[in-house]
């Protein structure tokens, strides 16, 4: 897979009147194309700063970065980029239709294409009925929806979404999750900043965790999340077998006439299954339980105090 975003020792220091903030510290990162990349970190970790640099809103104090092989600052790369800002502040004097049409013109789309895409996008984010409403009369969640729509007007290959679902209702959140997966299914890359770890866990392929401007974790979600425990459901265990199993397991309980055996270490699994079979029982299922992203997040953050 090709690398679509690459940063090299990216650093940013903000100099304000009373202090200097190191918002990014030597960030070296690669994002593969075609994935949903979850960019995580506590408030003030430097997520928005990273996006601001990648989109050339601010200059890095040190380091370099490339998007689709073009060094940042090259306006051409933006032809194929979509961006939804953290705070959905948009032109309040335009209606949602005019707003999308305006950006369509910025991308030099012809009239028919603009009309088709505007219609399709408004439908997709559920704002069809509001097409003639001025954005100044939009609720925050509606602004986030139109923000997502404008990010897709140019059918981008890479979409930056900075906290795209924070103000959405549960229905909206599910819709947007589905939408993000749909974008990925079209072979596109999504760079997704969020605090809502359950959302990230549901849709992201790859995550990076940032803390105080430093990268503290990065990798595919399924490799990062360790197996926490394994649940074995078994039948027909006599007391002798149970006793042997109890030595290996963390917990054994009877559930609806079956036995639920929880083991913590993966290496104990073969011997457990062996004991069950030798004792004349049989096992119905083996289910590994992974730690949640939330657990990983907290253990990483605490490790790096």
């Amino acid at each position, binding site marked *: 897979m090709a690398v679509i975003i690459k940063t090299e020792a990216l650093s940013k220091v903000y100099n304000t009147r009373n202090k200097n903030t190191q918002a990014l510290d030597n960030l070296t990162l690669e994002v593969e194309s075609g994935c949903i990349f979850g960019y995580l970190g506590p408030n003030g970790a430097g997520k928005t700063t990273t996006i601001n640099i990648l*989109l050339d809103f601010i*200059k890095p104090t040190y380091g370099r970065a490339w998007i689709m092989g073009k060094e940042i600052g090259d*306006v051409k790369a*933006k032809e194929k980029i979509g961006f939804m800002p953290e705070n959905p502040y948009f*032109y309040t004097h335009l209606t949602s239709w005019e707003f999308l049409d*305006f950006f369509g013109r*910025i991308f030099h789309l012809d009239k028919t294409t603009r009309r088709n895409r505007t219609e399709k996008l408004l439908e997709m984010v559920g704002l069809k009925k509001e097409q003639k409403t001025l954005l100044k009369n939009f609720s925050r969640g509606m602004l986030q929806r139109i923000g997502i729509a404008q990010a897709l007007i140019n059918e981008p290959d890479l979409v930056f979404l900075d906290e795209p679902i924070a103000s959405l209702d549960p229905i909206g959140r599910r819709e947007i999750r589905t939408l993000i997966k749909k974008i990925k299914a079209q072979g596109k890359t999504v760079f997704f900043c969020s605090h809502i770890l359950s959302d990230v866990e549901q849709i992201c392929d790859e995550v990076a965790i940032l803390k105080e401007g430093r990268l503290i974790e990065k990798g595919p979600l399924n490799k990062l999340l360790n197996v926490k425990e394994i649940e074995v459901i078994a039948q027909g265990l006599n007391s002798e077998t149970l006793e042997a199993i109890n030595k290996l397991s963390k917990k054994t309980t009877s559930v609806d006439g079956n036995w639920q055996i929880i083991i913590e270490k993966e290496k104990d699994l073969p011997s457990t299954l062996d004991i069950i079979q030798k004792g004349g029982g049989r096992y119905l299922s083996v289910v590994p339980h992974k730690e949640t992203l939330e657990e990983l997040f907290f253990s990483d953050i605490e490790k790096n105090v």
Partner: protein
Amino acid sequence: MNIWPIAQSSFKESMRQKILYVIVIFSFITILSALLYKTLAINQEVKLMKDVGLAAMVVLGVLVAIFTGTNSISREIDSKTIHTLLAKPVKRSEFVLGKFLGAGLTTLFNLAIMTIGFLIIVAIVEKGAPFYLLKAIVLTAVELLILVSASIFFSTIFPQAISTIFALLLFLVGHVTNLLPYLISKAETIGTKIIASIFYYLLPNLQYFNLRAEVVNNLSIPVSLILLTIIYGILYAAIGVVLSIFVIRGKDFA
């Protein structure tokens, strides 16, 4: 090039801002009050009315120019709408040019409305088409463009309130630069001399754009003078825009 859509959107924004309507209405009242002069002073010439009307258009035009100029870029930065725009393939220079064009159009549109109203009133009073007044108004238009450009430039560096004050000062000082050589010769401290000289050589002489007395008194004005003044004005406006592009290019929009 993305200048035109940005300009149009800015223009639309101004048109949807109520403040401009207030100014337009106020303008009409002022121009109409010029008519009042005519009726009050029965023996007075129509001249006074034209004087007052043209002067009112300059003052109101300047207010609109400075308001839209200082507002156009600073509003975009303060409200962070600039992020969504710069994430698209828009060069910073295109952004500044679009914003200048939008604010310029707003200002000229406003002047055009005042002009139409004014010309109709004069036409009624004089019972003839007063197109000769356009000579003065065209130069006012160019002067307003200088002020738009300067206001934009100030607003790339200072907050809007301060930019407004600077732009107003530019307007006032620009009309008295003729006096500066005298001030330089009479200045007591070297500091005053230097500052007055800088102002004299750097600031545009806005008095060049004031042909109102000549026009109202029907004096002949060579076309070449008008053309030269227009070029002079456009040059100054262009300097303001180029400087703004320079500042905006180096800016962080966090």
